């Protein structure tokens, strides 16, 4: 009951006042700010990291090169293969690091807000992924791509009435939706969890002075807060990776005909 009184409505955790262009389609709020700051961080790391071309990399160059190679080895080569890795790794690396830096704001002190917990950002990324894999499908498989994709060979004729709509639904309608919801829901849940523990710590340690039970129970939410903050780091990396690798898998799948 106390918790229910303390907790603000969900909107209080996710809606931010506009900084400028208030109440217009170009209203700039904390979400947009975080998106731009993440952009700047990515540009700084990879821009400065690629400027130095030392034979033995150090500092930012090392970080940038390692980051690029990790994506190439773990995403590109595993999905689109060595043949297309050169073309697609830059996009996958951009996607991964931008999502990661947007996610990681959830644990940065005084900011503590992942911009991906606003539906607009994951939706925008999912739409980009959706458009790309369809475009790649048309490029590699020609005009019949959609039909080839939803009509797997070897399926008995009678089952096609069932399989074709399911394939169409799962490949062309559900993919952007699932990509969006997976990233959005994970980051939202993490943000809410951290907010709940932070409010509990604040109430038990700072606001309320309720006697003995405070001394006994107050460390518990604090321990939980620290643990979930660490967990949120893992979630930030993992969700960025999942989004990137799924996009890569969809694109790789569009390059080849269904068998």
């Amino acid at each position, binding site marked *: 009951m106390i918790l229910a009184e303390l907790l*603000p*409505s969900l*909107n*209080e955790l*996710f*809606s931010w*006042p506009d900084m400028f*262009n*208030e*109440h*217009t*389609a*170009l209203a*700039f709020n904390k*979400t*947009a700010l975080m*998106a*731009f700051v*993440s*952009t700047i961080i*990515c*540009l700084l790391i*990879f*821009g400065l*990291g*690629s*400027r130095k*071309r030392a*034979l033995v990399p150090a500092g930012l160059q090392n970080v*940038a*090169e390692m980051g*690029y*190679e990790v994506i190439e080895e773990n995403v590109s080569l595993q999905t689109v293969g060595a043949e297309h890795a*050169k073309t697609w*790794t*830059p*996009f996958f*690396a*951009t996607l991964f690091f*931008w999502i990661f830096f947007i996610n990681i704001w959830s644990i940065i*002190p*005084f900011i503590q807000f992942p*911009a991906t917990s*606003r*539906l*607009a950002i994951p*939706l*925008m990324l999912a739409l980009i992924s959706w458009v790309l894999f369809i475009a790649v499908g048309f490029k590699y498989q020609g005009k019949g791509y959609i039909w080839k994709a939803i009509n797997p060979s070897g399926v008995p004729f009678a089952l096609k009435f069932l399989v074709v709509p399911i394939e169409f639904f799962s490949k062309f309608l559900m993919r952007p939706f699932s990509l969006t919801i997976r990233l959005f829901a994970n980051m*939202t849940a993490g943000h809410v969890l*951290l*907010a709940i523990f*932070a*409010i509990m710590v*604040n109430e038990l*340690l*700072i*606001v309320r002075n309720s006697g003995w039970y405070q001394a006994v129970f107050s460390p518990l939410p*604090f321990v939980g*807060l*620290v643990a979930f903050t660490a967990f949120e780091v893992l979630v930030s990396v993992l969700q960025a990776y999942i989004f990137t690798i799924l996009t890569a898998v969809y694109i790789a799948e569009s390059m080849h005909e269904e068998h």
Partner: protein
Amino acid sequence: MRIRRFMLAGVIAGVTVLIVAAPASAQDPGVKFGEHLLHCVEDAIHDNEAAIEDEDYTGFRNALEDCEKAPSIISPATPELIWGSVAFLIVAVVLIKFAFPALRKSLADRQEKIRGDLEGAERARQEAEAEKTRYEASLGDARAEANRIVEEAREAAEQVRRDLVTRAETDAAEIRSRAQQDAQLAAERAMSDLQQRVGEISIELAERIVERNLDKDTQMALVESYISSVGSGSAKS
């Protein structure tokens, strides 16, 4: 020392609590929602100003109802969609167009250099291997040559030894033959001397026999005397 550590841990924990809990108490949620409501009502009046003047309150009423509804967190906000897209577009264009190609070139150059170095090292290793084979072959040749020379020297020495032995044997045989010849000559000379002496003695003896008429005992004594004279004569010679 321990107390200091505990104090430091306490300070860090306190600061952490303040940092992580600060946003939760940054602004009273009620006040924040009130501000939102105020903005929303102001916007509703502003947007429907003309309709209100015409005494058409439908739009204004709908706008006010919307203000009371909290905006859903699962509806994408258009401004965020636009700004998010712009931010991603900037990062994607700059990184894909400029940063990553430079990075890839740097990686490729390094890879090329490492490959070149490795290939150079492999070539050097193969050359060293070939050199070693050549050296071992020449070492084998030298060893065989040395063996041959030693064998030749041994054969030459053997030949020299055999020659020396043969010569020594020849010399010994010559010496022996000469000695035998000398001995033969000496024996022949002795025999000749003996024959000559025996002849002389026989003549002498015959002269004596003829001089005296000898009985049997005298003959015997004479013969014995003759023999002993011959023996002493041969011993003398």
